[in-house]
């Protein structure tokens, strides 16, 4: 979910672009299947952290573009701050620097 929301900070995207974004952000470590990705998108939509921005028809098939909401931006930033604080506990120790 974190990588999906972080990807959407760059603007509205459709499913395939989100998949590519997640792969790039995670250095290829996170590669959700399409079924898993759409399960995540449905749950994030229900929680109101993302919303459908628009729909387009490409090759005769409808395609939803998702965008992160204000609530979603607040959630992902809070999560980033929490992880940053947790990482700082280790990084700021003198023994780690040495």
């Amino acid at each position, binding site marked *: 979910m974190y990588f999906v929301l972080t990807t959407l900070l760059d603007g509205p995207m459709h499913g*395939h672009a989100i998949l590519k974004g997640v792969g790039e952000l995670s250095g290829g470590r996170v590669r959700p299947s399409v079924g*898993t990705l759409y*399960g995540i998108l449905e749950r994030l939509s229900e929680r109101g952290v993302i919303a459908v921005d628009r729909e387009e028809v490409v090759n005769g098939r409808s395609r*939803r573009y998702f965008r992160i909401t204000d609530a979603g931006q607040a*959630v992902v930033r809070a999560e980033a701050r929490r992880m940053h604080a947790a990482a700082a506990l280790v990084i700021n120790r003198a023994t780690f620097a040495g």
Partner: protein
Amino acid sequence: MTPLERRYRRLLRAYPHDYRSAYGDELLDVLLESAAPLRTVPEPREATGLVIGGLRERLTRAGRGSSWANGVHLGVTALCAAQLAALLPYAPAIPLWTSLSALALLAVLRGRVRPALPLVLLTGAKAVAVASGEPLFDHLLLPVEPGFLTDAPLFALSEPPPVATDYALALGGLLVLAVYGRPLTPRSWWWWAVVPPMAWAGPAWMESGTVYPISLSRMAVELALLGMALWAGRLSHDPRWALGATIYVTVASARLWDHAADLTRQHLAYWGLLVFLAGATALVPFGHWRRASTPRLD
């Protein structure tokens, strides 16, 4: 249509029909865009993702509406499926009662509580009468011999109390739902698929000579359903699945209690698994509430 598209379309059937109508093409578009060129068979992880995603979507939809009413409906559905399974092997001898039991399951599946009530009452009264060896409504020759799926006569291994408990709980649940009065969401047609394996007395896994044998097929169906209830409870953080599981396990426990003196270690392991899964299904929503005090992206 390419072979890959055809295979992905088949896998997309795991999703509910209306979800597939709305978003099936969109998922297919992403699947085909993500596939390697010249690929004709879906990647295993994509196939698994679609099956799990479809099941998750179905469970999410099944978890809408009033939690307790849906939980009671789920429990009554499982009981009616098991009641039909108990009569199914004897359909050639008692076609009327088997048909009424099938109609009861149909009414319950469609959420039609009022038509289901008299059907369950009638079949229940007849079932208790057969288990007691008493005539009721018609002159049925006892014992009722099976036509297929099993060798034992009808209710040869059951005393009247557990049979009465089974139908009384189903009736009680239906009465509660009738008083509730609001429309119920119809349940999946897949419930019909659990009836034959629950009715089948094989494969035998308990030692020969066991007084109260339970077939491997029945046990597998029950454990699979309870496992799905546990997964659904974990997904939805909702107690309805636990309520349905508890209703079913109560009846299963009553059946075992009836044979308390004859139970083997295999029976106790089976009962332990049923109770463990029902208990775990009841606990998973509480785990979520405890974690909810610290919002996280998990």
